[in-house]
């Protein structure tokens, strides 16, 4: 099966009435193993697009095929399963549970796959080690730096080894250095085979990624790929 990891055909997404088009006729294909930046100014529809790619939302018109599955035709339960096993998310605000250790935050990434708590914790330690936080497993978010918190969040996103990782402004709340190390971590994960889509309004960051899709007013304005 040679399905694309992401395949959007003339996707639109409207909100409210009169309808506002957050995403306006986007078509794009992302293959397995790619690393893509989606760049655009504030309000250009980046998050809306991420919601569609991550199956958190359904298109108003057009079709979205994620991991070969047509989002419009799938039940809510099937989409949940797709997210549990096939898609990882990283957010600008980390969204970690306060008062819960790094290990348990990461283990939550496996909570909805029916894996027992011991196994979840064991794999959480592996994931934390993978993001370079093997020595911080019992720390709580309040005891970690911003960069470390985002790494915990990344560990949570990849603990179930999803083939697709989506990151919405992952460095938005970080300083230069921790931002750079998070980007480096994403590169590493990509080298291990994970398809990664990073949303950012930071053009400089986007330049470091092999493929850049620029959007404005919900439309793709350019799509450039480095030739390796």
């Amino acid at each position, binding site marked *: 099966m040679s399905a694309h990891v992401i395949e959007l055909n003339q996707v639109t997404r409207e909100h409210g009435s009169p309808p506002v088009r957050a995403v306006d006729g986007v078509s794009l294909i992302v293959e397995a193993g790619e690393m893509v930046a989606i760049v655009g100014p504030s309000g250009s529809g980046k*998050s809306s697009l*991420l*919601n569609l790619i*991550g199956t*958190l*939302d359904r298109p108003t018109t057009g079709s979205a095929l994620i991991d070969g599955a047509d989002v419009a035709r799938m039940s*809510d*339960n*099937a989409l*949940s*399963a*797709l*997210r*549990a*096993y096939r898609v990882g*998310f990283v*957010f600008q605000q980390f*969204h970690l*549970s*306060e*008062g*819960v250790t790094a290990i348990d935050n990461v283990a*939550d*990434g496996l*909570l*909805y*796959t*029916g894996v*027992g*708590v011991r196994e979840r914790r064991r794999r959480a330690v592996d994931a934390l080690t993978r993001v370079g936080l093997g020595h911080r497993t019992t720390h709580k978010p309040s005891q970690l730096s911003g960069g470390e918190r985002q790494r915990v969040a990344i560990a*949570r996103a990849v603990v*179930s080894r999803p083939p697709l990782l989506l990151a*919405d402004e992952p460095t938005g709340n970080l300083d230069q250095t921790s931002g750079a190390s998070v980007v480096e971590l994403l590169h590493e994960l990509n080298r291990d085979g994970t398809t990664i889509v990073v949303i950012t309004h930071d053009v400089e960051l986007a330049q470091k990624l092999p493929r850049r899709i620029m959007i404005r007013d919900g439309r793709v304005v350019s799509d450039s790929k480095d030739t390796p």
Partner: protein
Amino acid sequence: MKRRRTAREQVSALPAKTRSRLLRKDVLRLGASGLKSRPTRVVLSALGIAIGIAAMIAVVGISTSSQAKLNEQLSSLGTNLLTVGAGKSLFGDQSKLPETAAGQVSRIEGVEKTAWLAELEGIKSYRSRLIDSGQSGGITAAAVSDTLLDVTEASMKSGNWFNEATANYPTVVLGAKAAQRLGVVTPGTQVWIHDQLFTVLGVLDPVPLAPELDTMAMFSEHTAIETLGWEKNPTTIYERSSDESVDAIRALLPRAVNPENPEEVEVSRPSDALAAKNAADTAFTGLLVGLGSVALLVGGIGVANTMVITVLERRREIGLRRALGTTRKHIRSQFLAEALLLSALGGVAGVGIGMVVITVFANANGWPVSVPPLVIISGVAATIVIGAVAGLYPAIRAARTPPTAVLAS
């Protein structure tokens, strides 16, 4: 049954990895951790439930404890005592029992022992001769048979009952309240009755089966005839038999006591009166149970309110969980579990508080502590039902939160 299974199997025939799964253990864990992160709110909203359950348990427990005490009392006092009184005549005036009444009763088949009492009209008792004669203070004078103490299961608080020697002297035995009213504490005290000094022989404990004795000044047959001018008509006859023959004897008593006017005779069973008094208490407990259920209702509303707020505050968390792959059903279970735990927490605390109240109350009254396990089980079960009802709407709302809430600012 078979058919449904096949349908289910078709769904689960998909590889396991295509479904989100949440272990039941983890549902509880999630519910508990949701509560742990907001301890103050949890305590406050569980308190409403706790108070409601505590009130219910306490009320029921206090009533069952007093019932237990009553049963204890009845089994020691016996339920085989019948009391025969001279009722009112057809014309409404107080009738008297014939002189032979007591003897007739003892001749009834099955009667084991009898005693009698004769109220003496116009005999007034005072602490001393100096007291103004207006203040006679609700004490009834009565001639009594020797056997009265035994038949009514009365006991002496102090001093002695009449015996052969003392019966011929001006002596009196006082009921518990009568002694109090006359200010008599120790036997040997002299009191002023019918213009004459009487020596107090003894004082009775309160008599549960014959509470009328509590306010009486009692005299021996001899004293009553010689000194107080009694005409030998009893007013009340007490009778004991075996438990089985109580009903049969009850039917025979009026005719035996007063063959001419059996309809004037009043027969009663004092143990029934004791039980009825307790039943009257349960009417009062009904009111308290009502108050308890109002508290429970308010507690339930409190839980629902807390849960609705929690769900509103945690839209992002819900969105995040949806992004991590949970289904709507799982979200619903999580918040339902949280509501159930919250309410059950209140329930368990309430049962604890209720038990403490019962124990304190029962000890203060000298009752045995008796709480049927069913009451405790239904108390906790009630909180679980309340939690389910209170949590249902918030849980449904939580499940409706769209996954995109994780990104909404």
